[in-house]
Protein backbone atom coordinates (compact mmCIF):
# COMPACT_ATOMS: atom_id res chain seq x y z
CA UNK A 1 0.00 0.00 0.00
CA UNK A 2 1.28 3.46 -0.85
CA UNK A 3 1.11 5.95 1.97
CA UNK A 4 0.60 9.64 1.51
CA UNK A 5 4.10 10.24 2.93
CA UNK A 6 5.63 8.35 -0.01
CA UNK A 7 3.62 10.34 -2.52
CA UNK A 8 3.53 13.84 -1.04
CA UNK A 9 2.05 15.36 -4.21
CA UNK A 10 -1.05 13.18 -3.68
CA UNK A 11 -1.73 14.53 -0.22
CA UNK A 12 -3.95 17.31 -1.57
CA UNK A 13 -5.53 15.39 -4.42
CA UNK A 14 -9.31 15.81 -4.18
CA UNK A 15 -10.06 12.09 -4.39
CA UNK A 16 -7.97 11.33 -1.30
CA UNK A 17 -9.86 13.84 0.79
CA UNK A 18 -13.12 12.99 2.54
CA UNK A 19 -16.14 14.58 0.87
CA UNK A 20 -16.11 18.15 2.20
CA UNK A 21 -19.37 19.17 3.86
CA UNK A 22 -20.39 22.64 2.68
CA UNK A 23 -20.63 25.20 5.47
CA UNK A 24 -24.33 25.87 4.88
CA UNK A 25 -25.22 22.21 5.41
CA UNK A 26 -23.97 22.45 8.97
CA UNK A 27 -26.32 25.39 9.49
CA UNK A 28 -29.16 23.55 7.77
CA UNK A 29 -29.23 20.90 10.46
CA UNK A 30 -29.96 22.63 13.77
CA UNK A 31 -30.06 20.54 16.93
CA UNK A 32 -33.17 18.39 17.46
CA UNK A 33 -35.62 19.61 20.08
CA UNK A 34 -37.48 17.27 22.42
CA UNK A 35 -40.26 18.66 24.59
CA UNK A 36 -41.85 16.55 27.30
CA UNK A 37 -45.36 17.92 27.78
CA UNK A 38 -46.25 16.65 31.23
CA UNK A 39 -48.35 19.16 33.17
CA UNK A 40 -51.45 19.80 31.04
CA UNK A 41 -52.02 23.21 32.65
CA UNK A 42 -53.07 26.08 30.39
CA UNK A 43 -50.00 28.25 30.92
CA UNK A 44 -47.58 25.36 30.40
CA UNK A 45 -49.52 24.02 27.42
CA UNK A 46 -49.19 27.49 25.90
CA UNK A 47 -45.43 27.47 26.49
CA UNK A 48 -45.19 24.00 24.93
CA UNK A 49 -47.08 25.09 21.81
CA UNK A 50 -45.14 28.35 21.38
CA UNK A 51 -41.79 26.58 21.66
CA UNK A 52 -42.82 23.59 19.55
CA UNK A 53 -44.22 25.69 16.68
CA UNK A 54 -41.18 28.00 16.76
CA UNK A 55 -38.70 25.11 16.81
CA UNK A 56 -40.54 23.61 13.85
CA UNK A 57 -40.48 26.97 12.05
CA UNK A 58 -36.73 27.20 12.65
CA UNK A 59 -36.20 23.96 10.80
CA UNK A 60 -35.29 21.82 13.81
CA UNK A 61 -36.57 18.25 13.96
CA UNK A 62 -39.00 18.75 16.84
CA UNK A 63 -40.78 16.11 18.86
CA UNK A 64 -43.20 16.50 21.74
CA UNK A 65 -43.72 13.55 24.06
CA UNK A 66 -47.13 13.93 25.68
CA UNK A 67 -47.58 12.16 28.95
CA UNK A 68 -49.69 12.17 32.14
CA UNK A 69 -51.77 15.38 32.34
CA UNK A 70 -50.15 16.56 29.12
CA UNK A 71 -51.95 13.79 27.22
CA UNK A 72 -55.32 15.27 28.29
CA UNK A 73 -54.48 18.25 26.07
CA UNK A 74 -54.46 15.99 23.01
CA UNK A 75 -57.88 14.42 23.54
CA UNK A 76 -60.34 15.77 20.95
CA UNK A 77 -62.04 18.92 22.29
CA UNK A 78 -65.53 17.50 21.80
CA UNK A 79 -64.89 14.33 23.84
CA UNK A 80 -66.51 14.89 27.21
CA UNK A 81 -66.17 11.54 29.00
CA UNK A 82 -63.31 9.20 28.14
CA UNK A 83 -62.07 5.91 29.53
CA UNK A 84 -63.21 2.32 29.80
CA UNK A 85 -63.98 1.85 33.50
CA UNK A 86 -65.83 4.05 36.01
CA UNK A 87 -62.69 5.48 37.59
CA UNK A 88 -61.25 6.56 34.22
CA UNK A 89 -64.61 8.06 33.28
CA UNK A 90 -64.78 9.83 36.64
CA UNK A 91 -61.31 11.30 36.05
CA UNK A 92 -62.37 12.78 32.71
CA UNK A 93 -65.56 14.09 34.32
CA UNK A 94 -63.58 15.85 37.06
CA UNK A 95 -61.11 17.41 34.62
CA UNK A 96 -62.43 17.98 31.14
CA UNK A 97 -59.92 16.86 28.48
CA UNK A 98 -59.08 18.82 25.31
CA UNK A 99 -56.78 21.67 24.36
CA UNK A 100 -59.56 24.28 24.65
CA UNK A 101 -60.42 23.22 28.20
CA UNK A 102 -57.09 23.63 29.98
CA UNK A 103 -57.06 25.23 33.42
CA UNK A 104 -54.59 27.65 34.92
CA UNK A 105 -52.54 26.30 37.82
CA UNK A 106 -52.97 29.66 39.56
CA UNK A 107 -55.91 32.10 39.43
CA UNK A 108 -58.20 29.67 37.65
CA UNK A 109 -61.28 30.98 39.54
CA UNK A 110 -63.70 28.45 38.09
CA UNK A 111 -62.60 29.22 34.55
CA UNK A 112 -62.63 33.01 34.81
CA UNK A 113 -58.79 33.13 34.63
CA UNK A 114 -58.58 31.12 31.38
CA UNK A 115 -61.50 33.12 29.93
CA UNK A 116 -59.70 36.41 30.62
CA UNK A 117 -56.44 34.99 29.25
CA UNK A 118 -58.29 34.04 26.07
CA UNK A 119 -59.83 37.53 25.78
CA UNK A 120 -56.46 39.24 26.29
CA UNK A 121 -54.76 36.89 23.84
CA UNK A 122 -57.32 37.77 21.15
CA UNK A 123 -56.97 41.47 21.88
CA UNK A 124 -53.19 41.33 21.51
CA UNK A 125 -53.15 38.89 18.56
CA UNK A 126 -51.55 36.10 20.55
CA UNK A 127 -52.27 32.73 18.98
CA UNK A 128 -54.20 30.26 21.13
CA UNK A 129 -52.65 26.90 22.08
CA UNK A 130 -55.01 25.25 19.57
CA UNK A 131 -53.88 27.52 16.70
CA UNK A 132 -50.25 26.94 17.63
CA UNK A 133 -50.78 23.17 17.73
CA UNK A 134 -52.15 23.30 14.18
CA UNK A 135 -49.22 25.48 13.06
CA UNK A 136 -46.74 23.11 14.73
CA UNK A 137 -48.28 20.12 12.96
CA UNK A 138 -48.05 21.97 9.62
CA UNK A 139 -44.36 22.63 10.37
CA UNK A 140 -43.81 18.90 10.81
CA UNK A 141 -43.59 18.80 14.61
CA UNK A 142 -44.19 15.24 15.78
CA UNK A 143 -46.44 14.66 18.79
CA UNK A 144 -45.85 11.29 20.42
CA UNK A 145 -48.42 10.04 22.95
CA UNK A 146 -47.24 8.05 25.97
CA UNK A 147 -48.54 4.49 25.71
CA UNK A 148 -48.57 3.99 29.49
CA UNK A 149 -50.68 7.12 30.07
CA UNK A 150 -53.10 6.05 27.32
CA UNK A 151 -53.55 2.72 29.09
CA UNK A 152 -53.95 4.32 32.50
CA UNK A 153 -56.65 6.75 31.30
CA UNK A 154 -58.24 4.15 29.02
CA UNK A 155 -57.69 6.33 25.94
CA UNK A 156 -57.72 5.00 22.39
CA UNK A 157 -56.00 6.60 19.42
CA UNK A 158 -59.45 7.61 18.20
CA UNK A 159 -59.85 9.76 21.36
CA UNK A 160 -56.76 11.76 20.38
CA UNK A 161 -56.57 14.65 17.90
CA UNK A 162 -55.69 13.98 14.26
CA UNK A 163 -52.07 13.74 13.23
CA UNK A 164 -50.61 12.22 16.41
CA UNK A 165 -47.58 9.97 16.02
CA UNK A 166 -47.22 6.38 17.22
CA UNK A 167 -47.53 5.84 21.00
CA UNK A 168 -44.11 5.38 22.56
CA UNK A 169 -42.49 4.93 25.96
CA UNK A 170 -39.81 6.46 28.16
CA UNK A 171 -36.98 4.53 26.48
CA UNK A 172 -37.71 6.28 23.17
CA UNK A 173 -37.53 9.63 24.93
CA UNK A 174 -34.25 8.86 26.69
CA UNK A 175 -32.85 7.48 23.43
CA UNK A 176 -33.62 10.77 21.65
CA UNK A 177 -31.89 12.70 24.45
CA UNK A 178 -28.86 10.43 24.17
CA UNK A 179 -28.79 11.15 20.44
CA UNK A 180 -28.39 14.81 21.31
CA UNK A 181 -31.90 16.34 21.21
CA UNK A 182 -32.19 19.40 23.45
CA UNK A 183 -34.70 18.33 26.11
CA UNK A 184 -37.37 20.48 27.74
CA UNK A 185 -39.64 19.21 30.52
CA UNK A 186 -42.78 21.32 30.72
Amino acid sequence: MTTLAEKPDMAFAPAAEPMPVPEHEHEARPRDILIIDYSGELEKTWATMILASTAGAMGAKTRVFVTFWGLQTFVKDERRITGQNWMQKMMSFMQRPGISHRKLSKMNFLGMGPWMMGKLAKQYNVASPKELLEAAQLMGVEFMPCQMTMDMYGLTRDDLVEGMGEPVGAATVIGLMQDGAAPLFI
Partner: protein
Amino acid sequence: MSVLDIKEHVDARGLSCPLPIVRTAQAVKGLASGDLVEVLATDPGSLKDFAAWSKSTGNEIVEQGEDGGVYRFVLRRK
Protein backbone atom coordinates in the same frame (compact mmCIF):
# COMPACT_ATOMS: atom_id res chain seq x y z
CA MET B 1 -39.43 51.47 -5.03
CA SER B 2 -37.84 48.09 -4.59
CA VAL B 3 -36.38 46.44 -7.64
CA LEU B 4 -36.35 43.05 -5.95
CA ASP B 5 -38.50 40.30 -7.42
CA ILE B 6 -40.56 39.37 -4.40
CA LYS B 7 -42.57 36.16 -4.73
CA GLU B 8 -44.49 36.20 -1.45
CA HIS B 9 -45.62 38.73 1.16
CA VAL B 10 -46.26 38.03 4.83
CA ASP B 11 -48.21 40.68 6.71
CA ALA B 12 -47.45 39.94 10.36
CA ARG B 13 -48.27 43.46 11.55
CA GLY B 14 -50.03 43.34 14.91
CA LEU B 15 -49.18 39.69 15.46
CA SER B 16 -47.37 38.62 18.63
CA CYS B 17 -44.58 36.12 19.10
CA PRO B 18 -44.23 33.48 17.71
CA LEU B 19 -46.65 34.15 14.84
CA PRO B 20 -44.40 36.37 12.66
CA ILE B 21 -41.81 33.57 12.54
CA VAL B 22 -44.36 30.77 12.21
CA ARG B 23 -46.26 32.50 9.39
CA THR B 24 -43.00 33.30 7.59
CA ALA B 25 -41.79 29.72 7.87
CA GLN B 26 -45.09 28.51 6.44
CA ALA B 27 -44.81 30.97 3.52
CA VAL B 28 -41.20 30.03 2.81
CA LYS B 29 -42.12 26.33 2.65
CA GLY B 30 -44.09 26.96 -0.54
CA LEU B 31 -41.25 28.79 -2.29
CA ALA B 32 -38.42 27.55 -4.47
CA SER B 33 -34.78 27.97 -3.54
CA GLY B 34 -33.63 31.55 -4.20
CA ASP B 35 -37.16 33.04 -4.05
CA LEU B 36 -37.66 36.21 -2.02
CA VAL B 37 -40.29 36.83 0.62
CA GLU B 38 -41.13 40.18 2.19
CA VAL B 39 -42.27 40.26 5.81
CA LEU B 40 -43.83 43.18 7.65
CA ALA B 41 -44.01 42.98 11.45
CA THR B 42 -44.61 45.28 14.38
CA ASP B 43 -43.27 42.98 17.10
CA PRO B 44 -40.01 44.65 18.27
CA GLY B 45 -38.71 41.16 19.14
CA SER B 46 -38.69 40.40 15.38
CA LEU B 47 -35.28 42.01 14.90
CA LYS B 48 -33.54 39.39 17.00
CA ASP B 49 -36.02 36.63 16.19
CA PHE B 50 -35.53 36.87 12.42
CA ALA B 51 -31.76 36.94 12.87
CA ALA B 52 -31.97 33.72 14.91
CA TRP B 53 -34.41 32.15 12.43
CA SER B 54 -32.14 33.03 9.51
CA LYS B 55 -29.11 31.54 11.24
CA SER B 56 -30.98 28.33 12.09
CA THR B 57 -32.69 27.76 8.75
CA GLY B 58 -30.02 29.20 6.43
CA ASN B 59 -32.59 31.48 4.76
CA GLU B 60 -30.77 34.74 4.17
CA ILE B 61 -31.88 38.22 5.28
CA VAL B 62 -31.39 40.28 2.12
CA GLU B 63 -32.79 43.54 3.46
CA GLN B 64 -34.12 44.77 6.75
CA GLY B 65 -35.34 48.10 7.97
CA GLU B 66 -37.77 49.91 10.24
CA ASP B 67 -40.20 52.65 9.41
CA GLY B 68 -42.58 54.10 11.99
CA GLY B 69 -42.62 50.99 14.15
CA VAL B 70 -43.02 48.60 11.21
CA TYR B 71 -40.13 46.23 10.61
CA ARG B 72 -39.56 45.03 7.08
CA PHE B 73 -37.50 42.00 6.15
CA VAL B 74 -36.70 40.61 2.74
CA LEU B 75 -35.63 37.00 3.01
CA ARG B 76 -34.21 34.63 0.44
CA ARG B 77 -35.12 30.98 0.61
CA LYS B 78 -32.07 28.75 0.83
